[in-house]
């Protein structure tokens, strides 16, 4: 019994022992399986996982370049970058947007207008691009968020350089402004170069010189943790800042021009005929471009849009007006060049002109007529009949062909975005657009700058400069030079020009003399100066057409139906340094309202008050 029991116990002990050894073998087999697996992961696939691990923690971040600054001719800063802290939400990283903003507003003050701007910008953001919920955080707010920030995934403080325009409305139309990049712009820009940028030129110089101003993006490799927080920088390639632009623009003159326009709606374009440099480019009224940089509020925008004065409208480069009598000197030149008139040939003005075989009477502005007039007298008196006759003899083809050489009918190519080209009517144009044949009567109307003929103030200024230059038409430019960051000297931007050749070079002098007489004794005599000679031409452009027997009575017309007053000029006649075009909308007569504006600008410029470098050689003139 005990024997058997003992045998059983021994057998049992052997059974359990054998199971223990089987278990040991199974354990070793199972652990070997894991080891094989680990060998596969850590030896065979080590390279693969090393790359994945690196991709996990190393992120490439773009470093946005600082936008180039803009200086006027005297080194006054017109467009600056100032550091600003904003609070941004990356919507893709946030689960519950409303709850996050609600929670956020307990830490940082968020006003309804911040919410409104956020909602607006949310619509046109790029994917994974942060949208600012608050701008211009104070240092205290930055510190407060630094403490609580970890609670808000997808919400970050961004330090960035924000564009400011210290002179605000004085530069709005010429510089334009920058704003946040929207979807349409995203489609045409180089995405990698704009990877870190939030702003892009939306208009004016900022848009035209975007490539120079923006600069080259830099990159840094950073180590991030699983929540995307940057731990350290591994490698970096610094960005190249945009180039600073030095302008021809004289902000002092710009201010004078704006003051000279006063409350009137209108535009002034003044340029240096020697190089095409824009000295002043004013469209009045203006607006504060700083409002647009971070996105303008709906109410502000509505106010600007609904204002009858259209402050957002850049009259200087987009305003297309019938040039009126300011075109007459060009028509006269065309007649001389074509040989259909001479300086001595006289035309009789009876107060009206009719085409042979037509009853329609094309009236002169002076009802009683000017009598017999030479070309010079016709310009000085701005006689319409003389130019009806001249245009008629030239014909539309020669007339528009010659005027086009001065730049009418096509954009000048100025470095201000959004420029329009006006309209130089031709036979071909009328056929294409109106599907009608050209009538001889229309040629007459074009000859006095009315009808479908449209020109921008900029085009008038450029063409006037071309007369001052004896035919050299220079593409106007706001920016003179671009200076790379750190470069000692600025790089001059190239001049583009073409020259109109007349068979008889004296004909330029003839026209210039006539224009000088316009100011000395003609329609612009009220701005005559004893300090220097001004060559000019007044103009009046009709806002609405009078019937055949109606009389224009300025006193009884509502302001908005009054004629636009125009004036083009250059000075000094002997050595032109400034050429300009002025338009005062509904200002009435060009000699009465537009010419005095031009005089103030010319005075300011040639008087040297706003150009210190020219002060020494103009100081003497002022004393005369």
């Amino acid at each position, binding site marked *: 019994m*005990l*024997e058997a029991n*003992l045998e*059983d*116990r*021994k057998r*049992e*002990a052997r*059974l*359990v*022992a054998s*199971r*223990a*050894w089987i*278990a*040991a073998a199974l*354990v*070793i087999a*199972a*652990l070997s*399986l*894991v*080891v094989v*697996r*680990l*060998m596969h*992961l*850590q*030896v065979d*696939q*080590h390279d*693969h*996982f*090393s790359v*994945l*691990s*690196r991709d*996990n*923690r190393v992120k490439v971040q773009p470093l946005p370049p600082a936008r180039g600054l803009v200086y006027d001719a005297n080194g006054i800063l017109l467009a600056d970058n100032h550091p600003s802290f904003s609070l941004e939400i990356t919507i893709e990283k946030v689960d519950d947007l409303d709850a996050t903003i609600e929670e956020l507003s307990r830490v940082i003050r968020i006003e309804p207008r911040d919410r409104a701007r956020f909602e607006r910008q949310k619509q046109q953001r790029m994917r994974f691009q942060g949208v600012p919920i608050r701008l211009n955080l104070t240092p205290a707010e930055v510190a407060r968020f630094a403490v609580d920030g970890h609670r808000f995934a997808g919400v970050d403080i961004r330090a960035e350089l924000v564009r400011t325009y210290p002179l605000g409305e004085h530069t709005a139309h010429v510089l334009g402004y920058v704003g946040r990049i929207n979807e349409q712009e995203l489609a045409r820009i180089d995405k990698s170069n704009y990877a870190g940028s939030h702003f892009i030129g939306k208009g004016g110089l900022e848009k035209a010189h975007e490539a120079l101003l923006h600069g080259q993006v830099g990159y840094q490799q950073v*180590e*991030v*943790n*699983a*929540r995307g927080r940057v*731990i350290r920088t591994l490698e970096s390639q610094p960005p190249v800042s945009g180039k600073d632009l030095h302008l021809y623009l004289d902000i002092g003159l710009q201010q004078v021009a704006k003051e000279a326009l006063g409350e009137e709606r209108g535009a002034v374009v003044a340029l240096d005929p020697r190089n095409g440099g824009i000295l002043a480019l004013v469209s009045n009224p203006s607006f504060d471009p700083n409002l647009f940089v971070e996105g303008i509020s709906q109410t502000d925008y509505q106010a600007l849009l609904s204002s009858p004065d259209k402050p957002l409208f850049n009259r200087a480069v987009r305003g297309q007006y019938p040039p009126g009598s300011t075109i007459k000197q060009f028509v006269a030149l065309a007649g001389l060049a074509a040989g259909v008139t001479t300086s001595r040939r006289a035309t009789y003005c009876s107060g009206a002109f009719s085409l042979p075989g037509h009853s329609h009477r094309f009236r002169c502005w002076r009802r009683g007529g000017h009598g017999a007039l030479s070309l010079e007298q016709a310009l000085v008196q701005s006689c319409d009949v003389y130019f009806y006759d001249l245009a008629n003899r030239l014909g539309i083809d020669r007339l528009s062909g010659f005027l086009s050489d001065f730049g009418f009918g096509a954009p000048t190519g100025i470095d201000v975005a959004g420029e329009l080209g006006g309209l130089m009517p031709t036979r071909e144009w009328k056929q294409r657009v109106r599907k009608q044949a050209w009538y001889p009567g229309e040629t007459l109307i074009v000859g006095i700058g009315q009808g479908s003929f449209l020109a921008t103030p900029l085009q008038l200024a450029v063409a006037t400069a071309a007369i001052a230059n004896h035919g050299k038409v220079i593409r106007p430019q706001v920016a003179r030079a671009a200076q790379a960051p750190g470069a000692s000297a600025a790089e001059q931007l190239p001049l583009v020009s073409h020259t109109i050749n007349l068979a008889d070079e004296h004909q330029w002098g003839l026209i210039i003399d006539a224009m000088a007489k316009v100011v000395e004794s003609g329609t612009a005599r009220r701005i005559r100066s004893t300090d220097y000679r001004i060559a000019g031409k007044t103009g009046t452009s009709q806002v609405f057409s009078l019937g055949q027997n109606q009389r224009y009575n300025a006193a009884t017309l509502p302001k908005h139906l009054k004629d636009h007053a125009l004036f083009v000029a250059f000075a000094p006649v002997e050595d032109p340094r400034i050429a300009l075009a002025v338009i005062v909308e509904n200002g009435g007569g060009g000699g009465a309202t537009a010419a005095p504006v031009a005089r103030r600008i010319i005075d300011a410029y040639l008087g040297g008050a706003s150009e210190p470098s020219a002060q020494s050689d103009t100081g003497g003139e002022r004393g005369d």
Partner: protein
Amino acid sequence: MAIRSSSYFSEDPLDQGRPGFWQRIHLDAPLLAGLLALCGFGLMVLFSASDQDPAAVERQLVRLGVAFGLMIAVAQVSPARLRSWSPLLYGVGVTMLIAVLLVGDVGKGAQRWLDFGIVRFQPSEILKLAVPMMLAWMLSARALPPKLLWVVLAAVATLIPVVLIAKQPDLGTSLLVASAGVMVLFVAGMGWVMILSLAGVVAAVTPLVWIGLHDYQRERVLTFLNPESDPLGSGYHIIQSKIAIGSGGIDGKGWLNGTQSHLEFLPERNTDFIFAVIGEEFGFTGILALFALYLFIILRGLVITARAQDRFGRLLAGALTLVFFVYVFVNTGMVTGLLPVVGVPLPLISYGGTSMVTLMAGFGIIMGIHTHRIRSRAAS
């Protein structure tokens, strides 16, 4: 007769002569050395995995102290006394499991905790010891290998707590408790035919289990089958863990230099996924060393099993040792992507107290079995 029996016992040198120092304090020196080395290594890894937080290491050290204390205390209890406590412990354990389902605290979406005012603990931990004890108690009353009836009864005694724990739901623990039952039967010499048919039954039941699983459990299984299907959701754990281990290579990135863990890409790097930290920082070499340590502890447990003097001791020591192995295998298999993600910690290294205390108590039982010996002199 007495001589015959004494010769039976005298096969083990431990049973002869005066008991040594370790035997008198009822500890097993090799096992203790292995455990201390493992825990020391664990603390080092934890320091790194917790982002060099001394407080975390300190808390773990306190738990280790408690666990080692418990181990020493349990080792003093003789197997015979343990055996007599087994049914009671099992009964209390199952009662508390039912209580948990009725009034338990909810933690992490599952009811696992019982709150006794001062102590909050998981009754399921008790079952990790109570189930193998209960089965060893049942089977040690009769000759081994067990007859079919007793196998069935043992299976029922295992399944009751397993189902209760799975309902909490706590898949990892129920798996461990089930494996404890299976291990007792295996060590008891259950026939291979029965083992195979049991495997067949498990295979047949699996689809039913699938139906009974919670959504998140099913998701884990599906994610295991194809982790890339959901790289930011439930597949994230396993993808990041494979990256950590794979990028460690042969030599590892060095202690405290694991980028996956320190930059927080690796989730639960303190607890269930701490093995990936070891793989990343110490590489394949470090893992081999760790496995050598685990293997040493397991083999020592099996040696003790083979050398145990009575049925109860053999069954219990074998089962507890093999459950320890199941921990290691399931955790490392899960972290390396061999097995589905079930919440099983890496034994004695993962941060956290409950499983560590139970494991060390288990080692206390193993040591007690080894050191409370009926001496050959006493037998004669």
